[in-house]
């Protein structure tokens, strides 16, 4: 050991704010041997590091709180507010928000005499950290870890890794849909230019050169698009970071100052993905154009043959089957790779099957209705291949949008129902979430219990416990459970304790998932410096604590630790008691009562749902993007189709069809095609949502939820999409309809 620095590290509640400030109580002499940055920044009076009423803040914290040297910083301890003078700022390159006080002062201010929760060690050169960690680990009380500084970063990284990977996958989804868009546009472009390409072949261009030319065209398109997309994405990210900060609502990135980082490898990856999507999109059509015999390709009307190759059904079915099988595979390093792969395969399989499905549907729909509709349907039946590509685009966009909508709705409804069950009391007092320093002392608890209008009160104490060294800490909750009949609603069967079993503990669904705790098992929790043994009496759903939670009886907790403080109180009021007057009573009778957060269950529910919506705002945004891309794909598909059929329209016009009737025909075709696309998309979306709910979410975040289908939302969506698709079809045909009739027919060479 070269140096050891004792630390008391706490998240202190700042009155009036929701975020806590991390405060490190340090022995400056020892800490300076380990963290040299403590010698930097503006520090004028060295003794200020030792004074009990002074505090040093990091540069990032000073900016966040608007503090400069000499200002007062208020911190809540218990329910009281303590003021410390800012004696200087610390230079720290990592842009983290924290503050430093003297260790002795910290132990006194935060009423933790004799307590340390961290010791930083610096080893002599050549010392073996692993062996030292092993030796130390056996001497330290249970519930402590020995780890390298990277361990903390790794744990935090692992925490948010599933979340970040999820976001990246959502982004890739948008890319995939974009790729389909490119495929549809390129396929139809190539088809349209088939005669020109055949001419080039006839003039002597080799097949290889032709393919290369087409691929190069789409590569250029892809490159330009990718660059533009990267620039736009970068700008959007900068704006969002500045407006909303790094905290997306899931709680992973609190207390960080976000800076926009250009991740060159990732950007390069996305750039090449964009180019690749474009190139792949035109690969099949390019190969087809090259392979066709020049002579027959020169003649017009040969576009149909291109898309015949997509006819057989078995490749698509095989892909669907593999996708279904992959859903059964477990997570890899905590990430649901096979789940994502299964979704991708389901999507690809369905897209491959689309032309076949289209043909089937066109044959099944009867030839009824007004004349334009019948002509349109007949045309579709005769040349179904052309619509296959547009259908693929609609199906991809719709299914992804629908699956995400179903998942988010299921989650939201499950959360709402859970909130109803888990907030049975009339009023909730909280000393401040996410901080270690605010609490209700026993005296204050007695005052609250004796308030007029309060029939029953339940106090909750929460703490963080390290159960496994490689996993983030879980939350320990201690309140009255069985005596008050307040066992949480359980998933699955309860385990009835036999006499002689260790005391009961109820574990949350997430904790059960992560640590494998099942009802009936005996687990060890490091409470009060010892390993306490508990029997798992049941598993309950918990959406509030993302790393897992364990509930034990409060009397067990107080008996083991001697800690009679509480964090939260739930009050049941007498009939007729009024929340507003009770809030005033609390502020009046309890010293520091103004620092309590008082909320009714309704407020808590709406706040929770607001946080949920904010967390999923990114998902909503990406859904919207997917829909827009789908629509664009649709419109480009129809547009290209209409252009290709100019001669046909000209012929029909010659035969006497009015423009309006052609418009009606286009509308009918658009309606039918998009109806098929929507139908398949809805079914596929439902399947994908099942994978998302039961595989991806469970493996990434260990969330469980019940399936709820947002019927109203889906119905509205379907109606809007049908209308939009029909309009698109008509609008894209407008060009063709208004053209010179004679000239259109002449183009036959």
């Amino acid at each position, binding site marked *: 050991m070269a140096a050891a620095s004792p630390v008391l590290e706490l998240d202190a509640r700042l009155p009036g704010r929701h975020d806590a400030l991390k405060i490190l109580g340090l022995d400056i002499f020892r800490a300076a041997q380990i963290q040299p940055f403590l*010698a930097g920044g503006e520090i004028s009076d060295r003794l200020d590091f*030792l004074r*009990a009423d002074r505090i040093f803040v990091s540069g990032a914290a000073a900016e966040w709180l608007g503090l400069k040297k000499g200002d007062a910083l208020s911190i809540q301890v218990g329910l*009281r507010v303590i003021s410390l003078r800012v004696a200087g700022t610390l230079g720290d390159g990592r842009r983290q928000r924290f503050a430093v006080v003297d*260790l*002795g002062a910290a*132990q006194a201010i935060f*009423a933790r005499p004799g307590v340390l929760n961290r010791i930083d060690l610096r080893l002599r050169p050549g010392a073996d950290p692993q062996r030292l960690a092993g030796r130390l680990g056996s001497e330290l009380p249970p519930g402590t870890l020995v780890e390298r500084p990277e361990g903390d970063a790794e744990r935090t990284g692992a925490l948010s890794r599933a979340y970040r990977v999820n976001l990246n996958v959502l982004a890739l989804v948008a890319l995939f849909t974009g790729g389909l868009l490119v495929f549809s546009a390129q396929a139809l472009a190539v088809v349209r230019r088939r005669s020109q390409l055949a001419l080039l072949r006839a003039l002597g261009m080799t097949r290889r050169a032709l393919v290369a030319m087409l691929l190069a065209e789409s590569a250029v398109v892809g490159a330009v698009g990718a660059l533009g997309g990267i620039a736009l994405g970068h700008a959007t990210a900068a704006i969002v970071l500045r407006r909303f900060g790094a905290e997306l609502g899931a709680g992973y990135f609190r207390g960080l100052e976000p800076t926009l980082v250009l991740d060159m490898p990732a950007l390069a990856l996305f750039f090449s993905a964009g180019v690749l999507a474009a190139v792949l999109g035109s690969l099949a059509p390019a190969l087809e154009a090259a392979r066709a015999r020049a002579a027959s390709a020169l003649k017009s009307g040969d576009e149909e043959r291109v898309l015949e190759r997509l006819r057989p059904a078995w490749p698509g079915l095989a892909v669907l089957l593999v996708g279904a099988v992959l859903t059964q595979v477990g997570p890899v390093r905590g990430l649901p790779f096979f789940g994502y792969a299964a979704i991708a395969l389901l999507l690809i399989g369905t897209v491959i099957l689309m032309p076949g499905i289209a043909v089937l549907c066109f044959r099944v729909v009867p030839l009824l209705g007004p004349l334009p509709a019948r002509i349109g349907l007949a045309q579709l039946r005769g040349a179904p291949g052309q619509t296959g590509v547009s259908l693929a685009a609609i199906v991809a966009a719709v299914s992804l949008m629908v699956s995400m909508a179903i998942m988010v709705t299921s989650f939201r409804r499950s959360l709402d129902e859970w909130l109803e069950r888990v907030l049975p009391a009339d009023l909730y007092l909280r000393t401040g979430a996410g901080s270690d320093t605010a609490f209700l002392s026993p005296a204050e608890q007695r005052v609250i219990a004796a308030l007029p209008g309060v029939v029953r009160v339940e106090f909750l104490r929460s703490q963080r416990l390290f159960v496994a060294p490689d996993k983030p800490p879980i939350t320990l909750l201690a309140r009255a459970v069985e005596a008050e009949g307040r066992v949480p609603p359980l998933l699955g069967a309860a385990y009835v304790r036999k006499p002689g079993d260790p005391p009961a503990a109820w574990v949350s669904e997430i904790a059960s998932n992560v640590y494998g705790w099942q009802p009936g098992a005996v687990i060890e929790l490091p409470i009060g410096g010892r390993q306490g043994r508990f029997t798992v009496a049941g598993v309950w759903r918990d959406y509030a604590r993302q790393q897992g939670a364990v509930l034990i009886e409060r009397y067990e907790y107080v008996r083991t630790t001697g800690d009679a403080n509480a964090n939260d109180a739930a009050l049941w009021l007498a009939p007729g008691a009024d929340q507003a007057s009770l809030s005033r009573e609390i502020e009046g009778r309890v010293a520091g009562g103004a620092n309590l957060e008082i909320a009714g269950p309704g407020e808590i529910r709406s706040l929770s749902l607001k946080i949920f919506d904010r967390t999923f705002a990114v998902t909503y945004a990406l859904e919207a993007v997917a829909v827009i891309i789908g629509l664009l794909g649709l419109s480009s598909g129809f547009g290209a189709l209409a252009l290709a059929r100019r001669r046909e329209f000209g012929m029909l016009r010659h035969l006497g069809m009015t423009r309006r009737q052609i418009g009606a025909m286009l509308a009918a075709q658009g309606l039918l095609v998009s109806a098929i696309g929507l139908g398949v998309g809805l079914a596929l979306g439902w399947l994908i949502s099942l994978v998302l709910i039961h595989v991806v979410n469970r493996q990434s975040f260990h969330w469980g939820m019940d399936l709820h289908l947002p019927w109203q939302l889906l119905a509205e969506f379907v109606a809007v999409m049908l209308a939009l698709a029909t309009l698109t079809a008509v609008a894209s045909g407008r060009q063709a309809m208004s053209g010179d009739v004679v000239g259109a027919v002449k183009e036959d060479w």
Partner: protein
Amino acid sequence: MRPVGFLISAALGLFTPGALAAEDYAQVRPGVALQFPRDHGSHPRFRNEWWYITGWLRTSGGGELGMQVTFFRNRPRIAEEISSRFAPRQLLFAHAALADPEAGRLLHDQRAARAGFGLAEAAEGRTDVAIGDWSLRQTDGGYAAEVAARDFRYALRFDSKQPPLLQGERGFSRKGPGAAQASYYYSRPRLRVSGSVVIQGRELEVSGEAWLDHEWSSEPLAQEAVGWDWIGINLSDGGALMAFRVRARDGGSFWAGGAVRGADGRVRILKPGEVRFEPLRRWRSPRTGAEYPVSVRVHAGALILELEPLMDDQELDARASTGTIYWEGAVRARQGEKAQGRGYLELTGYWKPLGL
């Protein structure tokens, strides 16, 4: 004492009767007899205290080294009502240096810690002060010091047959005209040194002669004082000389004093007018730009000695512990051509005015 500190501890009910109450610093007064062995130890109610050994060492190969080790205790009088065991009631600092002419500049290191937990302590009743693995302890007939620094290590024994030399008026040593500008101060010159020094991995057996100062006080230097010059010379005739002057802002002497002990043990305390420091040659530090008079002629009563340093660059940067930079160097004393003794010269307050 800051009023806010009182409010905090009162509000949290932490005022425990056993803790050292925030009383004033103890004052240095004339006429108080120093008692040994008690006064060898720490005096925690005073603001500043130090145990300070300087010496000349001879290696078995014939080379010469200067050594210095100093342990400081400071009572900052902040956070004294806080009952936490980490409260910074006493701060301990240590400097250690080796002057090796082959290196050309001082090898030095420093330590700083708050007293507590047995990891850094200054005991009362006998000299026993330690910070981590650095220590100075009283033994039968002398002292033992151990230092493990970044670039060097030493473990030395200092033996003395003579009683402590009380400076000033039986230990009450004035530092200025004011009644309170004084310290309790005694020296132990002519300590016989033996032990080993490790420099750059080489272990050397050494022997030599050293000088120990132990001084404690509460009153800072007078406002007009910016620093002091001090010498402690073991004379070749068996006696010892200590002389100092406190410098004023204009560079002249604000106060002076000293003591001469003859080979027979008789002590003569020098009056302020009998001590004069005359700079002969100055040296400018390339690192800090401070200019030190590294060679001086000292008039101390009847003695006139010219002092030449072992090497010029013996500047000690102690900013990380006590926040000062000073010059502390091994010097040879001569009278004309004749060598008269060896000891140390300390020059403080040349970089910035010293705020004690």
